C-alpha cells in the first residue's frame, strides 16, 4: 500500500484520498472545521493547513501521494491555526458561557485544543437578527463561520438548496433561499441532513437549549481529536 510521512509517522492511503482523510483514518488528528467526512471538501477555513516540502497546503483538499513528507504538529503551524481560530471568534458572536452549543461546538473545542485563552483581537460584535420563523428550527447568523456544510448538505443530500453563501471576501454571509429570506418560507425540515451538520451554534433545534447538563456534553467527555476518531469509527 502506498504511504506518506506525517510528522515522521508512516500513514498509508488509498488512491484518491486526501491527506486529511488518510490521517483521520489512521487516528491522527489535524485540526479542521469546514471538512466533514460525508461531504466534498471545501477548503475554506484553512485550519487544516500543513507543510509539505516547505510549502503550506490545505490537507483537506491536497491529495495524498507516495513519499510525501508532511508536517502538521509544529509550533509554527499551530500558532497559525490559533490565529485563524481567534479571528473566527471575533468575527462572530461566540460568547461560550451563554451559548447553548457550548460543549458541543467544534469551534470551541478546537480553541481548547489549540490552547486559546483569549480572543486577542477586538470583537466585531455583529448584530444580525435571529431568524426564528421556522416552527422547529432557529438560525443565529451571528455565529456562522461560513464553513458551507449546511449549503453542501442541503444541496447534495437533501436536494433542497435551502442555504447559500452570498457576497465576497469579508462581506460573505449565509443566506436562506427564499424570497423573504426566511427559513419558515422554505421546505427545510427537521429531518434534513442540513439540520444537524452545523459545527457551531447557528442551526439550532428550538426549545432544546441547555437540556444537556455540563459534564455530559460531547466535548466534556472527549477531546476533539478523539471525537473525530470515534465519529469515523461509528460511521464505518
Amino acid at each position, binding site marked *: 500500500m502506498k504511504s506518506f510521512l506525517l510528522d515522521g509517522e508512516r500513514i498509508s492511503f488509498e488512491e484518491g484520498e486526501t491527506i486529511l482523510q488518510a490521517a483521520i483514518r489512521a487516528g491522527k488528528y489535524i485540526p479542521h472545521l469546514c471538512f466533514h467526512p460525508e461531504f466534498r471538501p471545501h477548503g475554506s477555513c484553512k485550519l487544516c493547513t500543513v507543510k509539505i516540502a516547505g510549502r503550506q497546503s490545505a490537507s483537506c483538499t491536497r491529495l495524498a501521494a507516495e513519499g510525501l513528507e508532511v508536517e502538521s504538529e509544529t509550533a509554527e503551524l499551530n500558532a497559525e491555526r490559533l490565529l485563524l481560530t481567534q479571528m473566527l471568534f471575533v468575527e462572530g458572536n461566540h460568547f461560550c*458561557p*451563554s451559548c*447553548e452549543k457550548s460543549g458541543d461546538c467544534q469551534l470551541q473545542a478546537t480553541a481548547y485544543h489549540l490552547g486559546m485563552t483569549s480572543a486577542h483581537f477586538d470583537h466585531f460584535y455583529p448584530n444580525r*437578527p*435571529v431568524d*426564528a*420563523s421556522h416552527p422547529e428550527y*432557529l438560525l443565529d447568523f451571528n455565529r456562522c463561520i461560513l464553513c458551507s456544510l449546511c449549503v453542501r448538505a442541503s444541496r447534495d443530500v437533501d436536494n433542497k438548496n435551502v442555504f447559500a453563501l452570498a457576497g465576497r471576501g469579508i462581506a460573505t454571509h449565509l443566506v436562506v433561499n427564499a424570497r423573504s429570506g426566511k427559513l419558515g418560507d422554505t421546505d427545510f425540515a427537521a429531518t434534513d441532513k442540513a439540520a444537524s451538520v452545523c459545527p457551531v451554534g447557528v442551526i*439550532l433545534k*428550538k*426549545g*432544546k*437549549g*441547555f*437540556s*444537556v*447538563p*455540563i*459534564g*455530559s456534553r460531547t466535548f466534556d467527555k472527549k477531546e476533539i481529536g478523539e471525537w473525530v476518531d470515534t465519529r469515523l469509527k461509528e460511521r464505518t
Partner: protein
Amino acid sequence: MNTLETAENPEKLRRIAIDPVSRVEGHGKVTLLLDEDNRVRQVRLHIVEFRGFEKFIQGRPYWEVPVMVQRLCGICPVSHHLAASKAMDMLLGMEKLTPAADKNRRLMHYGQILQSHALHFFHLCSPDLLFGFDSEVAKRNIVGIAAAFPEVAKKGVLLRKYGQEIIRMTAGKKIHGTGSIPGGVNKSLSKEERKALLGEIYTMVSWSLEAVGIVKQLFESNREFFENFGRFDAKSLSLVRADGAMDLYHGDLRAREIDGKKIFDHFDYRHYWDVISEDVKPWSYMKFPYLGSLGPDEGWYRVGPLARISNCDFIPTPLADRERREFLEYDDGRAAGATLGYHWARMIEMLHAAENIKDLLHDDEIEGEDLIARQGERAGRGVGVIEAPRGTLIHHYRVNEEDLVIRANLIVSTTHNNQAMNEAIRQVALQYLDGREITEGLLNHIEVAIRAFDPCLSCATHALGRMPLEIELFDCEGEKLSSASRSSEGIFLAQ
C-alpha cells in the same frame, strides 16, 4: 423621608463626591454638599443601573435567557438564573415542577444564599464590624481578619466554599452554570455528590449558628451604637409562603408597615405591577420603586434580610426560627429596625439556608430522575420572582410566537432598596459627618451603611472589599479645595 434629598441653595455649598471607580454591577457614587461650617445640606447616592441588558436580551430565544442573565451579577448570578427560569416556567405553563426539579432548584438557591451571605458578612463587612469603622485602613479587610481572627476568617471562607460547591453540583459550574432550564432542571444531585455534601452539612449548620452569635455579641458590646447607626423607619416587602413562612425560593408578595400592620398580603407576583410602581428622579439613573397605593413619598420600602425576617410569620427550620424570635424581641424590637440589623438578619438567614440544605439532602427526591414538567398552555409573558440574597428580584419577559423575547423588565434588589439606602446614608451623614472635618474614617461610615444592604456596590469581587474612592471637595464657587483618593488596596492619599 428626611429632608437631605435636595438642598435649598446648592450653588452656595461645598461638594464632596465619593466615586467608586470600578464596578461589578452598575456604577455608584455618593455626593455630599456642605456649607461653610461643614454642615451637611444634601446627600445623594447615585447608582448607574445596567439597564442595557433589557435591550440586549431582545430578539433572543427564551430558553437562552436563564443562562444569559447570569452576566448581570458577579456575586449572585444564580438568583438571576432561577428568577428567569421561573419566568419561563410560567411562559410555557410549566409552573408545577416535578418534586426532583423543585428540590434541586431550591438546593441551588439555598447554596447561593449561603455563599453570598458568607461573602457579604465575613469578607466584606466583618472588617468594619470587628475592627471599627475608622480603624486602620490597611488592616480593614479579610486579610486583616485572617491575621487577627483566624478562626472567624477560616469559617467564613469554608462556608462560602460549601455554598459554591452546591452551586457547582446543581448548576454544573460555579459561575455560568446551566442547571435550571425552563420547566425544570437538567440534572439532579448524584449519589456521590449528595454524600459529599452530607458529610459537611452539620459543621456548616453549627458554624452558621456561631456566626449569628458573632453579630449578637457585637450588638451587646455597643447596643446604642449598633441600633442607631443610620437608623430610619421603613415599610418592608418580601415573598412569603402560603402559610406565612419564610420561603426564599417561592411565594406571594407581602408588604408591612413599620408597626407590622399588613399593607397587602398573599399578592400573586404574576401581577406585581398592580402593587409596585417605579418613580424617576432627575438626579438619578436608577428608578425608585414604591408601593403604588401609597404613592412615591410614602410607599418606598426595604427589601432583603431585615425586611424578610420581620415580614414572615415564622422560619420553617427550628434553629433559625429561635434566632428570629430573639432578634425581633431584642431591646423591644430596636435591633429589627436598625440598619446594622441587616447583618444579624443576614446571619439568621444563612443559618436557615444551612438547615434547609440539610433537610433537602436528607430527602431522597433530591436524586430523582423526573426532571421536566409536562408542558401546559403557553402564555405570552412570564414573570419570575425570587428572594435573592439582597432582596426581592423580579424578572418579567414578553415572548412572541416565534419564541423570541420582545420585552424585558427586571427590578433587582438594589433598585428596590434605592430609597432606603439613600435614607441610611443621609442619617449617617447627619450623625457622624455633620459639622466635622471629613476624614477617610468618616467617609467609611457612609460605605458601611451601603454595605449593610449591598456588597456589589462595595465593589466586592474586584478589591477585597475595599471600595476604590475618589473624593473631591469644592468650595462655594466650585473651586477645587483638595482631593484625596483611596486605591483598591485601601490606601488613603491626601493631596
